């Protein structure tokens, strides 16, 4: 061990503290003195908790999915569900960044289309930390009856069958 260090053992905590001895306090030992002192029983070293300032926040790690994605999905679905003709909404979060919303409706009137586009625009405005990709599809033109999800987090909100009342 470095001769400039003092070691304390703390039996109760099994922690060893090594404290550097300040160099300016290192002096030649007067060996004649050692004969004049006796043994001293050391009390167990007591370690107490010290409150330290908090660590800086870690670098941002993308949560998957972000909490705001759930909120965006909830609000979008609640609003679009009220538009006449909407059958199903598929929400897929992929490519790490983009939230894809696909609304299936039938029929799609000019009125319902305008309402859905307005809800999409409001969603973009309400969640500036998210990037969206919106699609509006005619349910009767969709393949099969069940959306095939892309990999990643996804949500579906379905009202009845995708092709109910379609065609």
């Amino acid at each position, binding site marked *: 061990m470095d001769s400039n260090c003092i070691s304390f053992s703390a039996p109760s905590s099994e922690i060893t503290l090594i404290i550097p001895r300040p160099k300016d306090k290192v002096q030649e030992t007067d060996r004649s003195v050692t004969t004049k002192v006796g043994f001293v029983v050391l009390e167990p070293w007591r370690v107490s908790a010290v409150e330290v300032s908090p660590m800086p926040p870690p670098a941002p790690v993308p949560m998957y999915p972000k909490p705001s994605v759930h909120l965006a999905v909830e609000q979008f679905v609640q609003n679009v569900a009220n538009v006449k003709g909407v059958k199903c909404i598929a929400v897929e979060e992929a490519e790490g960044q983009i939230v894809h919303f696909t609304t299936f409706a039938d029929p799609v009137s000019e009125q319902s289309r305008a309402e859905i*586009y307005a809800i999409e625009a409001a969603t973009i*405005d309400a969640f500036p930390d998210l990037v969206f990709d919106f*699609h509006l*599809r005619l349910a009767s*033109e969709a393949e099969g009856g069940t959306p095939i999800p892309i990999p990643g987090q996804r949500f579906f909100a379905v009202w009845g069958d995708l092709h109910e009342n379609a065609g």
Partner: protein
Amino acid sequence: MRTLDDHLQQAKKNEQFANRLIQSWDAEFAEWAVVALFYAAAHYGRAYIVHCGAKTITNHPGFESYFRRNWTSSSDVFPHYRRLKDESERARYDCARYTKADVISFRDGYLVPFRSAILAALGR
């Protein structure tokens, strides 16, 4: 890095291509006119993004989010872009069929006002 003029030039080319398909009308290829209309809008929109000095768009699907957040004009052109995008996807993926009247209505009803608003915002 593409400039504002690069995107405007590409937009005009795509619009011209759509117009040629409309003029020479062949119903078998009508969907490509719809696709060309959308890609004209996409490049007009990107010209505006360049004009704004916004960050490079790294995800094309997210374009509408970037565009809307940067669009400061009072005219609401988001529905025009969305309609052209949806019709383009119908044409490409859902085998939609279009009449000449359909395509002209998309051009005049959505691309023309979208383009006019963009050019006005660009001072052109």
